[in-house]
């Protein structure tokens, strides 16, 4: 379900304050381990959501697929992959106390994520026909329906990831993180990589596998 | 009464009680779960399977409940006794036995189940084909172009229903025939059975399909082969008088 931010924020939050206040765990390292486990459990759960969408795709399409714009598909995929590198830069920056790399990396990630979103919404969805006429609508047939469902659910996660990035970026600039204690940054980064990873499965399922139909 | 819980005598008494209760339970179960009359070959096959299931239930239920009641009665705490129970934490051999024996039991039932399924779904070369259409909230039947609000089928011949619906899911069920199959929008589903008792039955929709699901019924008549031919010819004539001159088309 799409409480992605809610949870990721929650986990990050617990870490941020666990060091001082949570009586359940008096030591930051313990709380950090809890948080990591919590986040990974959350990913396991989300895997079933995205797995379910993949199953729907294979159930309804079998070895067919709609004709999508291959160029845009490749482009947005590359952009998203690239964003994982910038995210990694940001996290490494924080680890080394390099605030400049940290905030530039985050901003770059957010920008790349936004480009991805625009690519999906403007081009694949054809939300702005004045700029680009989309190929599919959600209501005509199952090809459109599944494309919109899969990209929509994924876009929702990218969007929440971008929101998360901005929160972490602001907190970072206010000095809430140190190279030793920055669970918020770590959670944000892992979350972003996870959303990225999901796309690595969605991309071939939508664009590559099967013969195109008209 | 023997003192130790592992004394053989406990088990002998309990086992005897299990045997007696199994028989009683078997009778009881079959009395409170009366199946409708067996109006099809499938009913014979399926009832046999259900019968074996009920006997297994009778045995397992007795086994566990008798041992439980036995413990309750025999091992209850007596007034003034403040000791704890005997200390044993488990027994691997026993655990393995009561894992493997039920495993064998379910494998046997699985085999039996597979055979029964193959038996009730088998197809035959000369099947009477009825096209069944379900809709909110009623049924209609079609025999090679002839429409009918009631379903009439010949006795002792395998019937193949080719079922369709356009609105929502319905389900075809005549309890006396035992078999059931959903009707799914956008897909033809097949159901086969062989009626063996002539008479009148009621077809009911078994899948919730909206307000009048409860009254989505249709009459079913199982008749002799000659009556069936006669009926079909008559229906055909009613619907298309031109055909009467050409003579009844038997099929």
């Amino acid at each position, binding site marked *: *379900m799409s409480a992605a931010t809610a949870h990721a924020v*929650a986990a990050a*939050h*617990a870490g941020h304050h666990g060091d*001082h206040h949570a*009586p*359940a*765990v008096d030591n930051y390292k313990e709380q950090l381990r*809890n948080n990591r*486990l*919590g986040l990974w459990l959350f990913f396991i759960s989300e*895997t*079933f959501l995205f797995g379910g969408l993949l199953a*729907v795709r294979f159930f309804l399409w079998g070895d067919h697929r709609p004709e999508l714009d291959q160029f845009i598909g490749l482009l947005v995929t590359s952009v998203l992959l690239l964003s994982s590198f910038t995210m990694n830069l940001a996290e490494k920056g924080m680890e080394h106390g390099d605030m400049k790399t940290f905030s530039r990396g985050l901003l770059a990630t957010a920008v790349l994520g936004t480009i991805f979103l625009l690519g999906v919404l403007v081009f694949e969805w054809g939300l702005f026909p004045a700029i680009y006429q989309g190929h599919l609508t*959600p*209501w*005509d047939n199952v090809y459109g*329906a599944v494309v919109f469902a899969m990209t929509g659910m994924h876009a929702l996660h990218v969007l929440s990831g971008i929101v998360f990035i901005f929160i972490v970026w*602001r907190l970072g600039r206010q000095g*809430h993180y140190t190279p030793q204690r920055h669970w918020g940054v770590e959670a944000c980064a892992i979350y972003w990589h996870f959303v990225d990873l999901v796309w690595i499965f969605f991309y071939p399922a939508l664009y590559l596998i099967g013969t195109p139909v008209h | 009464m023997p003192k*130790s819980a592992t004394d053989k005598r406990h088990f002998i008494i309990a086992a005897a009680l299990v045997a007696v209760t199994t028989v009683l339970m078997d009778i009881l179960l079959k009395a*409170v779960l009366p199946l409708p009359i067996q109006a099809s070959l499938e009913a014979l096959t*399926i009832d046999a*399977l259900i019968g074996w*299931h*009920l006997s297994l239930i009778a045995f397992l239920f007795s086994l566990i409940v008798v041992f*439980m009641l036995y413990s*309750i009665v025999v*091992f*209850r705490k007596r007034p003034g006794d403040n000791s704890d*129970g005997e*200390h044993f*934490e*488990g027994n691997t051999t026993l655990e393995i036995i*009561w894992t493997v024996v*039920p*495993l064998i039991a379910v494998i046997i*039932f699985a085999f039996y*189940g597979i055979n*029964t*399924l193959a*038996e009730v779904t088998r197809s035959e070369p000369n099947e009477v084909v009825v096209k069944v259409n379900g809709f909110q909230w009623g049924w209609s039947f079609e025999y090679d172009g002839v429409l009918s609000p009631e379903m009439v089928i010949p006795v002792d011949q395998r019937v193949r229903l080719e079922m369709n619906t356009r*609105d929502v899911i319905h389900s075809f*069920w005549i*309890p006396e025939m*035992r*078999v059931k*199959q959903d009707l*799914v*929008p*956008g*897909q033809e*589903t097949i159901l086969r059975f062989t009626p063996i008792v002539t008479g009148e039955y*009621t077809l*009911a929709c*078994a899948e*919730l399909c*909206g*307000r009048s699901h*409860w009254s989505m019924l249709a009459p079913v008549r199982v008749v002799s082969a000659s009556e069936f031919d006669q009926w079909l010819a008559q229906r055909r004539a009613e619907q298309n008088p031109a055909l009467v001159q050409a003579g009844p088309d038997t099929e």
Partner: protein
Amino acid sequence: MSLMSLGLVRGLIGQALGTLAGLFLVTLIRVLAGMDPIWAEEPAWVTGAVLGVIGFLIGVGALTDWAKWTVGIPTPLHHGPPVGKPAWVRYFSVDYNHKVIGIQYGVTGLLMLMIGGAFAVIFRTELSRTGLQFLSADTYNTLLSMHGWAALMAILLGIGGMANYLVPLMLGAEDMAFPRLNAFAYWLNVPSIVLLMTSLFFGWDGGWTVYPPLSVIGSVGYQFVFYSIFTLGLSSVLGSLNLIATILRMRPPGMTLFRMPIFCWAILATSMIQLTATQLIGLAFLMVSFERLLGMGFFDFEKGGTPILFQHLFWFYSHPAVYIFVLPGLGIISEILPVFARKPLFGYRWIALSSLAIALVGFLVWGHHMFTSGYAEYLRVPFMLATLLVAVPTGVKFFSWLGTIWGGRLTFPTPMLFVLGAISVFLIGGLSGPILATVASDLHLHDSYFVVGHFHATIFGGFTFPFFAAIYYWYPKITGRMYNEAMGKLHFWIMTPAFWMMSIGQMSVGVMGMRRRIADYDPALGVEFGHILVTIAGFAIAFSILIMIYNLLHSAEVGKVAGANPWRSRSPEWQIPSPVPEHSFAAPIAVVGEPYDYGLPNSTYIRMAGAAGDD
């Protein structure tokens, strides 16, 4: 003290405002975009429902800490009763103490059980005679569907109650791994209940399974159900995540997984299902919702979809869900039996691992609800095999329970009675499973009252009876006072025979040809007598539950003081005072022995630092 200091009240106001905002927003957009007609009920109510849930969470204060975090305001974790307000206020507001949250879950669960049961006794009254007496067919279908979901919600809440209250205590932990998330997960349930109740006013008739296309063409009430269950599911996911993390990470030194109180194993297995499978029902409901909103044709054959897909997604959750319902109950049985038998739990490891086995195999059997659905025929046999396999680990539990009481020193206070009742009831429910699993017999029994009988027996045996056992058993720990034993026994002795009459009656009419989910039936079936018995039994169960409610409320004031450990249990929660103090364990505990070594002299399970140790 003003009403507004109750989080619940603020939440409900928030939900109302959120809903209005949603209605307004959609209408505004339609006006601006020049759409016609201006009022579109479907998108308006959906937006209202979603914003309503968010409004509730903001109003109740479940998001406050996280909102503060996003702007960098420190939020110390407040542990303890509210300052400057009466102590009971905390039960109606966001509170991070797992014991408070456990009670919140449990009481909400009981409430939903009563609401769901009340729907049942209403429609049962209609069914006691042939002919439509006082309900229309539409009302019948709505009540039946509401009964299904209200009751299932009650189960999930009841489990949440037991797990949240007990797991940290049994682990000797101060609290759950993520206290804020815990409160958040609880408070999701309340707007979910509000949405479900709202659906009543629109009417919906799909049964709890809400199969499309029926649920696509039905009233807008369905949308409320979808978002209600979606919210409930989100709560399940987050709650179970928290429980798994707690069990894996918060155990005291010396407590290996195989030295946990057995209930924790049951919760671990249950949570694994909840964490994962729940996503699929959420997805399925979202898909129907969007098919209604935008005409996305997932389940519409004219657009290339198929209704069967929905059934796969639905049962991929809803079958494992039935094991979510029972595993905690079976854990309660395993937990309580040794205490009143004064003997170790027989085959601890086997019982623990059988829970995992049931949970895992349970993922592979969903197709047994679809034998007649028209899916590919070759799927029937593998689903039959997998289904039958579940009988094996379940059997291990039964036999191990027998091993536990065999040769014990049994006493029979109310909790023990409910546990023994649960075993016999769940037995008949479980045994009526394989008969549904061998496909051919299911061709007759599917969608008949036999199935209804089957699942009431499994649910009562696997959840309701153990839940009541747990309530009576831990009541002294929660309140510090004993419940009234005579009334407890009366409850048991009314409910158990009544239950048998109800469940066997349902199975009996089902075999004779009584279909599920019908408002009226053919007198020719000869099932009227059976129906009268079922109805009477339903009322008797309702009456007995009222006795329990009275007992629980009354004894909290006049019951005799219980003391720390009235049942002479070895479990950690009984080694601390009753009622449990705000900080449960005065000092950290360490595990030095086996949990269920009753009857072994000088054996110790836990030792408290500083204290002299336990019994």
